[in-house]
């Protein structure tokens, strides 16, 4: 009996201890697992410099004491951008405001040294550094056509440089490796050009990876944050980056490209041909995962505003009776959303705008269309393919409860001129005689419960995978196609043929396509040679030394 009592007492004691342990564990779980809200790249104190030089690729494996990139990374050598790519950082807080602002007004006496930056109190300091870097890039590129690549990261990432070599955020390492690859003196598509990267950072990581379950539940919180971050300050940053890249080009004394070899050697500086050739950087805005949501939120209104404004200016100057479309200069050469985690409701309004306005985007206004927006996702991206549906299921119930979602209608009520049915505008830019039309086949729920590129009805193009054709090292990865085939790319073991989607509604410059897992294996593995090679089919090619530049033209056909 006494033994049994002792056993019971021990069990009671164990139970209390167990509950105490559980309580302690829960207490620890509820605190101390957040990644602090802070700036990592201010250059103040121990923070790494806001503009860094990307070190040369290491001999692999870069193990032990040879980890890549080194820590801390060296500040950018802005006097020699051709030698190594530089990467600038811009950081935004949870409400989309820039982390760092300039305290004082300062104008350097020696303006010839690129390291002497002008300062204006109240301005976002990191943005000013970015603009200075772009101006330097334009000055130093031999052909006035540097590659300016911006990348907006997604969930669980930030601008952290870690505490030791190789400790940078994985997206920074991937972006640096990509810039290195593009400017590689042997194999890079942009060898001989200046390549700069701009890493737009927000607090994508809320919970430490040491709390993996809690981290997953930060999905809704970070999605809401991403939607908030893509706000005025980031829109301003994109517009200023675009303007700094595209401004000037007339080889006049005030032109950032006036010292470029082209302007110096041009026989008639200030003329129109010089203007186009001297300064036409390729500007790419790229967003991944929730970063694509940030980018889409920040850009959509700005891009439409820019297009409308330019179109109105062009229309005012149009020769009376002219029948051709009018050229418009968009904010970026190409906007790429990779494995976007934004619901298709985000892109729908832009696609409607592009379709109903009859936009076309092509080099020199030719029939061969190019994308202005490219939303690309992998069939193997389960994070945006399935988990987004799970993540949006609860909010959908709320929307349904409030009767917010509009339904599709097979026979929409309409008079001769309009309908109140839920509809989407359709337009095929590849058809020279194409006119905008309307379809009422999709409900609003279908947009909300899918990303753009996972929704087959929104595809502008299809990608088919086949056995590889013979290719030598001298051949380009992608060869232009004819008819409905845009291009065929030979990448490793396969040929990828990109063709217009059958019976498509979306024939606008907002291209939407889904690719095979051999190109993008999952949600996060995006910094790969395969994907870079594939994307070269869509990115305007750099000019060959001394060769002509064919600028892309966005034209609008409707009045």
């Amino acid at each position, binding site marked *: 009996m006494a033994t049994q009592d002792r056993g019971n007492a021990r069990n009671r004691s164990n139970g209390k201890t167990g*509950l105490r342990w559980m309580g302690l564990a829960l207490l620890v779980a509820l605190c101390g697992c957040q990644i602090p809200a802070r700036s990592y790249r201010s250059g103040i104190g121990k923070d790494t410099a806001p503009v860094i030089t990307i070190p040369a690729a290491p001999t*692999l*494996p870069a193990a032990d004491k040879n*980890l890549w990139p080194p820590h801390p990374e060296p500040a950018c050598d802005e006097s020699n951008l051709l030698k190594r790519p530089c990467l600038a950082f811009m950081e935004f807080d949870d409400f989309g405001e820039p982390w760092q602002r300039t305290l004082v007004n300062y104008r350097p006496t020696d303006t010839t040294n690129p390291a002497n930056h002008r300062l204006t109190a109240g301005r976002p300091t990191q943005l000013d550094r970015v603009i200075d870097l772009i101006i330097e890039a334009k000055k130093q590129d031999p052909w006035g056509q540097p590659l300016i690549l911006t990348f907006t990261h997604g969930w669980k990432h930030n601008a952290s440089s870690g505490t030791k070599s190789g400790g940078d955020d994985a997206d920074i*390492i991937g972006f640096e490796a990509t810039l290195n690859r593009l400017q590689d003196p042997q194999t890079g598509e942009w060898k001989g050009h200046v390549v700069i990267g701009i890493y737009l950072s927000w607090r994508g990581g809320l919970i430490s990876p040491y709390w993996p379950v809690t981290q997953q539940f930060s999905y809704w919180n970070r999605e809401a944050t991403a939607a908030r971050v893509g706000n005025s300050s980031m829109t301003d940053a994109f517009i200023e980056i675009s303007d700094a890249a595209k401004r000037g080009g007339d080889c006049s004394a005030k032109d950032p490209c006036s010292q470029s070899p082209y302007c110096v050697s041009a026989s008639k500086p200030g003329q129109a041909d010089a203007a186009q050739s001297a300064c036409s950087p390729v500007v790419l805005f790229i967003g991944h995962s929730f970063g694509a949501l940030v980018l889409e939120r920040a850009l959509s209104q700005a891009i439409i505003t820019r297009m409308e404004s330019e179109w109105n200016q062009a229309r005012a100057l149009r020769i009376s009776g002219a029948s051709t479309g009018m050229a418009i200069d968009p904010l970026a050469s190409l906007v790429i959303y990779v494995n976007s985690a934004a619901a298709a409701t985000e892109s729908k309004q832009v696609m409607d705008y592009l379709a109903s306005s009859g936009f076309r985007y092509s080099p020199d206004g030719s029939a061969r269309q190019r994308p202005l927006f490219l939303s690309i996702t992998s069939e193997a991206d389960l994070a945006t*393919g399935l988990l987004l549906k799970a993540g949006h299921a609860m909010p959908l119930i709320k929307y349904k409860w409030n009767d917010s979602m509009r339904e599709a209608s097979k026979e929409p009520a309409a008079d001769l001129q309009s309908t109140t049915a839920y509809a989407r505008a359709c337009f095929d830019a590849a058809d020279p005689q194409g006119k905008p039309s309307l379809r009422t086949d999709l409900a609003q729920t279908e947009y909300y419960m899918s990303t753009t590129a996972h929704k087959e009805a929104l595809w502008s193009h299809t990608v088919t995978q086949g056995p590889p054709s013979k290719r030598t090292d001298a051949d380009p990865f992608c060869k232009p196609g004819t008819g409905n085939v845009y291009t065929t790319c030979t990448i490793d073991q396969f040929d990828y043929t990109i063709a217009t989607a059958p019976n498509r509604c979306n024939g606008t410059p907002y291209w939407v396509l889904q690719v095979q897992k051999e190109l993008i294996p999952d949600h996060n593995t995006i910094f*790969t040679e395969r994907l870079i090679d594939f994307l070269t089919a869509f990115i305007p090619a750099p000019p060959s030394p001394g060769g002509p530049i064919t600028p892309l033209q966005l034209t609008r056909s409707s009045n």
Partner: protein
Amino acid sequence: MTRANPRRVIHQVQRRCVERVFAALFLAWTIAAGAGHASAQMLAFETSDSGSGAAGLVAPNLAPPDPAPSTQPQIHTYATASEQQGRLTCPGGFPTDLTVTDCSFTHDQRMLQWINTSFTDQAILGAVVYGLGAEIIKSPDAWGRTWKGYGQRVGVRYTQAAARGTAEFVVGTLLHDDPRHLSYKDDPHTPYGTKIASCKDGVITTVTYPVVEPGVWKRVGHAFVDSLTVLRSNGCGIGKRMPAYSRFVGIAAGTYGGFGWNPRSENTVSAAAQRFGTAYASTLAGSFYTEFSPELLTGLTRLITTKIKEH
């Protein structure tokens, strides 16, 4: 004539089961060792450990790519940093991934795994869920189906997870192993796809095998082997296979980790062996999932997509 004690009968059955599990383990282990040896022979390469800890397979012939018959393995070498970008494909990694500069299982990764599986929310969630299961089936009997009993069940599982994770961390750190599961196709020592053959003196040599899809039994066998062995951590991901000491020490630590908590009836050899077998079964399930997850995920995606389309 005396009636058989039911508890004793159950214990005898359990003991027999445990003995069979161990016999199966031993058999699989033997196969694993044989298969590891065979795969090394199949590659016809000599395994070696370099002084820097980079164990590697050294190709006997670093000839340029053989353009002739495609039925023969193709060998490529990449000597400069520029050529090597995207060529270091770690086991299970995606080819041409530019972010990969090192395939070893780093100290930071091991630390992250230790903390996650032993202490933080993943360990807590595991204890809460499995504790709930034990509460439902009332295991062990000595603890009532009460909140107190639930607390005890969760507590003991949390302790076991901590003991297992810590033992794995310590032994894994000492042996420098790479505990990540690999499928047959991703295994650096199987003749499938493009694999790194050697990685010495700043030169990466890859070998590309003719495409021959492995049969199901070969993959099942590999899943068993993979549950019993691990690779030695290596910068090029081509470390030698060795018995998964850290895994089994971890399982054993987890098995005995709850001794201070458990009622006396659970602190017997047969009960411990049962826990050991269950823990190994979960490892084996993980290995099988790794082996067959591509088919599982493809099937699942297809099923859901079809259902959504029908809806």
